[in-house]
C-alpha cells in the first residue's frame, strides 16, 4: 500500500492556503490557485492532502481519460464501444497529477505508443499527464521556473479545456479540464503576467511566526513519519468532515443568491482597483458565492466579498507597476473606501 499523504486537517495554520484550495475544489470553474511563498511552508503538503480528502469521482473502469460513464469522450477508445452495458463504472479518488520540472512536452500532451507501433504496426495514442489530470488537479511545483513553451501549452489547455494533439501522424482531441495549482518561491524568478492572470486565486504564505505553532508542526510531522497509516487514521474524521463540507457546499452553491447589490459592489471594487478585464470580477463573485455556501448562508454577503477580495484580486493588480503600495494594502484601501473596511 502506498504511504498515505499527510492529512489535510493535520496541517497547522496555513489557513489561507487551505481555504483557497477548498474553494477551488468546490467550484472548479474558478480557475486554479497560485501559492507563493518561502521554502518549507507546506505548500505541496497541502495540495496532496486535499486531493486525498476530496469526494470520489465516478468514472469508467480503466478508462485513461476519466470519462464519466454517461458522457464518454469521443476519442476514448475504451468508452466508445458498441456495447455500453459492458462498461463497468467505478469510483476513484480525485486525480492529482504532478507536473515535474523535467517533464517533456510529449509526456504532458500524450504521444504515440511507440511499442505498439514498432511491434504490431498499430497507431495508438498514449495519453499523457493532461489526460490523467482531467476532472482533477494539476500541480506544478516551482511554477516560476517552468519553461515558456510549457507555460504556453498549459495556458492554452487550461483555457479551452481541451487538449489537441497533432503530431506524429495522429490527430487527437480529448477533454482536459482540471484545476491548476501552482506553487513557487517568488525570490527565484517572476511569473509572467499572462500566467498570473490564469490563476483564479492567489495566496501568499510564510512559515508560522509563533513558536508554539512551529513546535506543533515538527511534532505532528514526526508522528506522521513514525506511523503514517495510524496518523492518517487519527485525522480521518476531521478530513471526512471537510469532505462533507465540500460536498454540501457544491450542492448549496447552485441555489445561493447573488444579489444585485453584491454584484455592483464587486464591480465597483474591481473598477477602483483597475483590474483588467472581467476575469477578476467573475472570480471574486464565484469565490464569494462558494464562501457563502461553505458558511451555510443562503445569499452572498459583504463579509464574503471582503474575505475573498484579496485572494481573487491580489495578483491582478498590475496596472501601475510604479505604484508604491503593496497589492493587499491597495485592496484593503479600496474596500475601506467602499465602506467595507
Amino acid at each position: 500500500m502506498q504511504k498515505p499523504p499527510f492529512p489535510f486537517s493535520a496541517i497547522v495554520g496555513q489557513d489561507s492556503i487551505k481555504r483557497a484550495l477548498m474553494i477551488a475544489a468546490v467550484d472548479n470553474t474558478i480557475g486554479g490557485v497560485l501559492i507563493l511563498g518561502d521554502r518549507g511552508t507546506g505548500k505541496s503538503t497541502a495540495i496532496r492532502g486535499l486531493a486525498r480528502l476530496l469526494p470520489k469521482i465516478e468514472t469508467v473502469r480503466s478508462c485513461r481519460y476519466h470519462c464519466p460513464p454517461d458522457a464518454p469522450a469521443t476519442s476514448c477508445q475504451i468508452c466508445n464501444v458498441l456495447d455500453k452495458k459492458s462498461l463497468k463504472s467505478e469510483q476513484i479518488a480525485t486525480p492529482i497529477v504532478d507536473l515535474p520540472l523535467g517533464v517533456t512536452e510529449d509526456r504532458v500532451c500524450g504521444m504515440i505508443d511507440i511499442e505498439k507501433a514498432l511491434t504490431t504496426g498499430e497507431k495508438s495514442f498514449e495519453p499523457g499527464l493532461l489526460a490523467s489530470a482531467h476532472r482533477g488537479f494539476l500541480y506544478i511545483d516551482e511554477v516560476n521556473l517552468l519553461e515558456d513553451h510549457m507555460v504556453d501549452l498549459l495556458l492554452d489547455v487550461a483555457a479551452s479545456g481541451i487538449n489537441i494533439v497533432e503530431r506524429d501522424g495522429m490527430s487527437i482531441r480529448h477533454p482536459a479540464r482540471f484545476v491548476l495549482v501552482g506553487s513557487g518561491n517568488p525570490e527565484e524568478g517572476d511569473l509572467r503576467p499572462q500566467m498570473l492572470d490564469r490563476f483564479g486565486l492567489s495566496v501568499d504564505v510564510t512559515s508560522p511566526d509563533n513558536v508554539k505553532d512551529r513546535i506543533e508542526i515538527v511534532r505532528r510531522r514526526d508522528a506522521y513519519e513514525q506511523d503514517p497509516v495510524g496518523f492518517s487514521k487519527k485525522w480521518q474524521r476531521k478530513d471526512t468532515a471537510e469532505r462533507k463540507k465540500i460536498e454540501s457546499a457544491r450542492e448549496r452553491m447552485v441555489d445561493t443568491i447573488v444579489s444585485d447589490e453584491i454584484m455592483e459592489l464587486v464591480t465597483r471594487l474591481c473598477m477602483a482597483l483597475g483590474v483588467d478585464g472581467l476575469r477578476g470580477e467573475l472570480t471574486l463573485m464565484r469565490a464569494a458565492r462558494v464562501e457563502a455556501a461553505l458558511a451555510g448562508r443562503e445569499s452572498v454577503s459583504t463579509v464574503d466579498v471582503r474575505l475573498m477580495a484579496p485572494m481573487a484580486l491580489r495578483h491582478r493588480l498590475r496596472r501601475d507597476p510604479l505604484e508604491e503600495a503593496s497589492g493587499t494594502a491597495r485592496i484593503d484601501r479600496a474596500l475601506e473606501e467602499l465602506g467595507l473596511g
Partner: protein
Amino acid sequence: MLTARIAASGGAHLGGVHILAHPGPVLTSWLDGFRRHLLPENPWIRLPVRPSTEALLGSVDVMDAFQSGVIRHVEGVLERASGGWLIMPMAESLETRNASIISQFMDEGDQSGSEAIESDVFTGPGLIAIDESSDEGESIPGGLADRLGLRLDLRDVLYSSIEPDWPALPGIPEKVWRSVQIGDDAMEQLVVYAALSGHPSMRKLIHLSHGARILAALQGDDVVTEDVIRLTAQLFLGGVPEWPNAPEEEEASSEAQTSKGENQHPPSPVDASHPSENIQSDASATPEEKNVDPSQDKASTAPPIDAHLLASNTRSKRGRASGKSKAGVTAGRRGQIYVSRSVPQLPDQKPDIMATLRAYAPWHHLRTRSSEHAGRLAIRSEDFRYQWRRQRVEQSVIFVVDASGSTALERYGETKSAIEQLLAECYIQRCNVSLIGCKGLQAECLLPPTRSLTSAKRKLGGYPGGGATPLASGLLAGLAAARSAERTGLMPHLVILTDGRSNIDLEGAANRKSAQDDVTKVARHIAFTGVSTICFDVSRRPGKRVRELSAQLGADYRSLPHVNAASISTVVSQRLQGGAR
C-alpha cells in the same frame, strides 16, 4: 567525526550534508571515512558535474529498444541512488533547474512519469553537496541548501590534523533515536536558534529536531539536554548563534544561550498566543531538565521570542537565489529546449532518440513489410529529430547620466521618466535597470540594479543637475557595474547620456585636459571589453565631441538634442530585444 555518524544514522531523514570544502585530501578523507559508516549495499553514486535531465531522471535504453523492440526505461542517477547517498561535487554550479529536479525527487520520489514507484518506504537518496565556492556571494542553490540538514566546514582543517583511518563508530537505528524525548522548551530553543541563524524554514526545524535526538541517543540518553541542543546547533546551523543585543543583556552576553524553562516573556502584543512563563516539558523529560544548575541561569532573562524575531531573519542568509549560467551564450549546448526540428542546430549534434523514434514509428510497419527489412528498424534521415536550445539571458541596463550644468535640468527630468517607462517595459521583459550619475567629484550610483519598480521610483526622486562633471569616473563606474552584472549572469547594456564635456578627471582634479584624457582612456577600455553601449548626445547642438566619444566607446551614437522619454525608451528597448535573441 561526529557528523558522519549522525548522517549515517539519520539517512535521508536529515536530507544530507552541506560540505564547504576545497577538493583535496581533507575532503577525500572525510568522504572515505563517511563511507565506512555505511553498509556496503547502500548505493554511493557520484553525480556528474553538469547533468542533463535524462541523466538525473532516467531515459530510454536505446540499444535495448533497437534490439528487442521494447521500450525500457533506464534508471537515472536519482533512482539509482535511492536508499543510499548521492555525492554532488561543485554543487554551487548546479543549475537551478537541476537543483529543483533533485529537490522534488527528494520530496516525493520518482515523478518523471515513467513507471511510478510504489513502495511502503520511500527513502530518497541522502545528498552530500560539496560546495567549493570561493566567492562571497556564491553558494549552492537555496532550495537545495534548505533540504540539507547537516553543515560541515572543512575549509580550515589541516590535513596533518586528521588521523588517516578514523574508525567508523556504529550509528543509531531509526527506532532508537525516534524514541528519544525532546521537550517543548528544548524545541523552543531550537526554534530560536534556527531563527537567529536566518533559517526560518520548517524543514530546518525538523532536521534540527531529528538531529538533536540522534545526538542524545549517541550519548545514550533518552532525553534531549541543553548541551545536546547546543551541539545540534553547531552541527546543523554551523554555529551556535548569539542573541542580538537585548535590553536586559548584562550577564547574558557571556551566557549567550538562554536558560531553560525559565523564560520570562515581557508581554509582546505580536505574539499574544504564546504562553508566558514556564513551559512545562513532558513528564518523562522532567527529571533530566529540572537538573539544570540554577547557577547557570544567572539573571539572563531571555529576550522575548516573538514574531518579529522569527520573521525578520527570513532574508539574512540566502545564498544564491538562482543559479544563472554565465552570460556568454554558447548557442545550442545550454539553455532550454524550445523546439524539435529535423535539422540539427549545431553540426555535430546528437539526435533526440525518443523524438526520432516517434517520428519514425508510424512508418515502421510500412517500411518493413518487405522481408529484407523485417525485424529491423528502417529509420531514414528525414525521421531524425534534434532538440534546439535557446539560452535566455537576462539583461541589465545601466544608465550613466551626465548631470553637468550644460545639460538642462528638464532633460534630466526627461531622463527620469524615460527610466520609469523603461522600468515598466523591463518588468515585462524582465531586466534590471540602474542609474549612475556624474556629479561633483565622483560618480555616484543613484539606483542600484533593480527590477523593483517601487524602489526605483522612490530613489529617482530629487536628483538635481548642475556642477562639475566627472564623466570619466561615471564611465568607469558604469563599466564596473557592467562587469558585476556579467558575473551574475546578466547581459549588460550601457546607456550613456552626455554632452561629452568633462571637467573633473579621475583623480578629482578640476583639470579639463586631464579630464578629457581620462575619458578617452576609459572609453577605449570600455570598447575593448565589448560591452554593448549606446551613447546619446544631449548637448543642445550635437557636435562632434560626443560623436568622437562614441567612436572611442565603440558605441552606437544617437543624437537627441531634445531628449525625451519616448525616444530614449524606444532605442533602448530595441537594443534589449536584439539582445534577447
